[in-house]
């Protein structure tokens, strides 16, 4: 019968044992230690960068939140409701960068759920990572995609440019929802939506008659609201991403540290075993004389 033997001696699980393989094992462990140490340095510096970016992003987000929520207060006061049969545009706010935890998956999942409820919605994706995830399942709904998102704290100019492109594409919609990651705290975020309504949907609002409005102002209001809400979504998404990246890198550094500890122990044990076996050789050789 064949004894089942492991094909390769795993340096981390097999400590003392195969003496004839010790040098190779020690070398392997040393190599692995070196690479894990350099990875730990990289993740630590990424964590530092992410936490400085996060504090800056958080400040921008607070102001953007005030700005955006003041805009959407109009829809609350006017009691605007999305129309049942109306067309929906879903704007997914994500970014191009990886290594930031579950940010992109969270936003993609939420977008997919909205598309399931309204299968003929159109989707505009901001950020390559979400585009990749959404292309797998709802590629046919994606109308536009933007990249170069997330490199720096978002500016209002960027949001205006995005809104401008969407409007120039003549994408018709009765309501738009901006799917983004709401920044709850430094360690948590949640996918949330911001509503934007078209002029026709807004003029059907419950409380619309209370407001005195000149008609030509409504279209401008709609475009302004779209740009403002996109800016709000971008700012919050960016803050959530930086916070998530910080905690992801912190975990990575911690795990790398644990691996280094374990590997160091294994290495020392191996080293001592080699020394002990050499000593035994010498002593038995000496006693034979």
């Amino acid at each position: 019968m064949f004894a089942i033997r492991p094909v390769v001696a795993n340096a981390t699980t097999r400590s003392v044992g195969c003496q004839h393989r010790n040098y190779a094992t020690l070398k392997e462990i040393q190599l692995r230690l070196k690479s894990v140490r350099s990875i730990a340095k990289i993740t630590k510096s990424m964590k530092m960068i992410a936490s400085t970016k996060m504090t800056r992003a958080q400040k921008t987000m607070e102001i953007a939140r005030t700005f955006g929520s003041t805009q959407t207060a109009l829809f609350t006061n006017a009691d605007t409701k999305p129309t049942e049969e109306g067309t929906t545009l879903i704007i997914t706010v994500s970014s191009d960068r990886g290594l930031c935890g579950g940010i992109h998956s969270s936003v993609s999942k939420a977008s997919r759920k909205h598309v399931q409820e309204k299968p003929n919605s159109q989707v505009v994706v901001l950020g390559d990572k979400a585009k990749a995830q959404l292309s797998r399942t709802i590629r046919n709904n994606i109308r536009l995609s933007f990249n170069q998102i997330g490199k720096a704290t978002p500016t209002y100019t960027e949001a205006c440019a995005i809104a401008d492109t969407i409007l120039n594409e003549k994408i018709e919609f009765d309501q738009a929802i901006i799917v983004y990651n709401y920044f709850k705290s430094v360690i948590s975020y949640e996918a949330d939506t911001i509503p934007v309504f078209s002029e026709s949907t807004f003029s059907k609002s419950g409380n619309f008659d209370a407001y005195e409005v000149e008609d030509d102002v409504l279209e401008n209001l709609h475009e302004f609201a779209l740009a403002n809400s996109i800016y709000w979504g971008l700012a919050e998404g960016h803050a959530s991403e930086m916070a998530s990246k910080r905690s992801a890198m912190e975990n990575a550094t911690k795990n790398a540290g644990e691996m280094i500890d374990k590997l160091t122990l294994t290495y020392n044990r191996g080293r001592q075993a080699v020394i002990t076996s050499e000593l035994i050789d010498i002593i038995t050789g000496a006693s034979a004389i």
Partner: protein
Amino acid sequence: RWYATEASASTSGLRLSFVLPHQTIYKGVEVQQVNIAATSGDMGILASHVPSIEQLRPGVVEVIENANATKKFFGEYTNKLGTNYLVSGGFAIINPNSSLDINAVEAFPLEDFSPEAIRANLAEAQRTATSGSSEEERNIAKVEVEVLESLQSALGSK
């Protein structure tokens, strides 16, 4: 025949939120009066104003915090009671609950502007507006001229 009932002395007053994308100037602050430059004309907003949605044209938004302001604002460009901001554009929304929300793209206190810089920029913009190379460039210059002219008149009149 009914006489109009006296407007209930609103204990709430006019609550102003004047917000920009990168700065929050006022948030839920009770003020006395706000004068805005809207596309439909200049208007002064007091508490219990009729709810309306107004688009702002480039011009001055004046915020008067307290009718009996004992605060003195230094600088020749402020009215004796109010703070003046030059606003490049945006929307002012007066809600039924006597709150005024102003979402503007840019706003700066008038005293931050220097007349010489305005004159220089205005001349340059007028030049580009007439002799710019592309239609888009000329339109951008025309908007610039509009903003600078209103800024100049605001500074001149105060």
